[in-house]
């Protein structure tokens, strides 16, 4: 053990026989190229995904151009296709989900990383992760029989009574609509946001907290002045990852949002999302242009989520690099 091995070439060159050396070199080279080939499949798959989706939506891209994303018409019979109602539904339901989920998720993350007693931390973290393990379609089923009736009979009437002067809480309410969709999305992205935030808070060096506590700060003051400012961009990253999940979430929201391609300011009204329209209509689409229009919606969704993910990862990495440098 006097000389630690620096690189694989060192022991190989000292190997006892030529046969062993030759075998090692060839084997290593083959091994390296073989694993590299499989690593390349990851890159190839992603590129193929982009290429196939552009190919599948080409008819629609050529036919409608940029008009596609600003047009409100969605009429398979006359072959008029515009994605605006779906873009609206996706954006609004996801923002609603964030508005509900972000405060709760940050609360969970702060509780788990800064406040909870040790014996509670792991079981609680595990339960929150189980929330993420429940399949989307099961949330949809639960939504139909538990959440939607509750929204219709309790939450929405209460909102109408107290906040009914706002246009968001007017009109008929059936329990299926933008608001219920937003709530189920919020439930589903809470584990994502809270577990990433928890990881981000965890990398903030302990000494930062000790310094603040030593100055006489309370727990909350410590968190507000010494922890959150350091973790800020990572927390933003966590929210963006949650947003990415909300945008692409399909089954539960398809089962609860009402699926009507209209733009209505009321959150009680049924709406439609990009993922939902694909899930609902893709197998029914018999005309080539109809199929291409749906594929183009998929392509838009793909591009947006890729961009968001890139952004979020950069932000989370930045905090981790900082945290690593400060310790």
């Amino acid at each position, binding site marked *: 053990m006097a000389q*630690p*091995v620096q690189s*694989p070439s060192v022991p*190989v060159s000292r190997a006892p026989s030529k046969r062993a050396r030759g075998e*090692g*070199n060839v084997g*290593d080279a083959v*091994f*390296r190229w073989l*694993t*590299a080939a*499989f*690593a390349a*499949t*990851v890159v190839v*798959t*992603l590129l193929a*995904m982009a290429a*196939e*989706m552009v190919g*599948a939506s080409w008819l629609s891209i050529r036919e409608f151009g940029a008009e596609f994303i600003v047009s409100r018409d969605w009429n398979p019979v006359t072959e008029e296709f515009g994605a605006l109602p779906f873009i609206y539904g996706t954006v609004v339901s996801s923002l609603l989900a964030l508005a509900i989920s972000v405060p*709760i998720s*940050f*609360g*969970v993350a*702060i*509780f788990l990383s800064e*406040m909870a007693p040790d014996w509670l931390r792991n079981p*609680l973290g595990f*339960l*929150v992760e*189980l*929330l993420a*393990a*429940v399949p989307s*379609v*099961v*949330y949809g*089923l*639960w939504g139909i*029989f*538990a959440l939607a009736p509750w929204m219709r009979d309790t939450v929405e009437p209460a909102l109408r009574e107290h906040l009914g002067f706002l246009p968001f809480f007017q009109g008929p309410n059936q329990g299926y609509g933008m608001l219920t969709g937003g709530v189920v999305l919020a439930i589903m992205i*809470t584990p994502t946001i809270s577990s990433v935030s928890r990881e981000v808070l965890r990398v903030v060096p302990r000494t930062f907290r000790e310094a603040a506590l030593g*100055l006489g700060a*309370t727990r*909350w003051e410590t*968190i507000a*002045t010494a922890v959150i400012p350091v973790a800020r961009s990572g927390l933003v990253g966590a929210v963006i*990852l949650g947003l*990415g999940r909300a945008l692409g979430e*399909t089954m539960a929201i398809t*089962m609860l949002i009402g699926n009507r391609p209209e733009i209505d300011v009321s959150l009680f009204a049924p709406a439609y999302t990009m993922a939902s329209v*694909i*899930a609902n209509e893709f*197998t029914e689409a018999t005309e080539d242009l109809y199929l291409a229009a749906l594929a183009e919606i998929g392509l838009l*969704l*793909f591009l947006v*989520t*890729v961009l968001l*993910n890139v952004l979020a990862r950069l932000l989370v990495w930045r905090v981790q690099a900082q945290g690593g440098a400060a310790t």
Partner: protein
Amino acid sequence: MTEVVERFGGSVRVRVLKDRLVRGACAGAALVALVPLFSVLYYLTVRGLAGLDAAFFTELPKPVGEEGGGMANAIVGSLQLVGLACLFGIPPGVLAGIYLAEFGNGAFGRVVRFCADVMSGVPSITIGIFVYALVVLRTKQFSAFAGGLALAVIMLPTVTRTTEELLKLVPEALREAALGLGVPKWRATLRIMLRTAAPGIATGIMLAVARVAGETAPLLFTAFGNRFWSRGLDEPVASLPVQIYTYAVSPYEEWHRQAWAAALVLVGLVLSLNILARVLVRHRVRT
């Protein structure tokens, strides 16, 4: 000192009160976050158990309006699809992970890692469109093969990154010992490093399997669905998640009953995989 007082402002009593409020709010948030989980589990238990019977596991679905019938074909179909996903997804994922852990420090490694991360954020429904365009359009039919491939694409980045992370946790000294004995690098990697990391990788794979077992969206237009037994991998096949979806949005009482039963079976499977993975990790850490 005055600066600090200003920063933390107010009398001690107010500050302590504020602290308590925030602590209460955070603990409250944790409680609120868990309410849906318990509600889902409650409904699943009550409604699912009510809908579950022997026929559920042994019979084919009955046509609308007839009582009874089961989801035997969907249960087998789900197992088939997950099996195919493992076949197509795990070997490339593990090998790609080995590459990243062993040789992944260069530019190519960074690109692969980045693509894997991006891929894991791609919505599963768009992966459905991808496989539809790639396989279904070309073979002109929905098939178990296409469904399995879609699930494999979802698994691939998770398996890759898990393998990489766990291989990196194996102490370098183990490898050095092997190399010092004249073992070629590839054998050291496979027989020492991979074997040491295997339980952890298996855990990660179990979590990935649990996730794809519940996936519905990518199956809608790849595996499609089937009211009968599928007789080959080139035929459409039923699966539990798609069956739950179809039955849940239907107007029939009897189908709702079966949807709950199927959901109970599916969640039972997914949660036990999750819990098993957890227990295995803890066990391994302790020993």
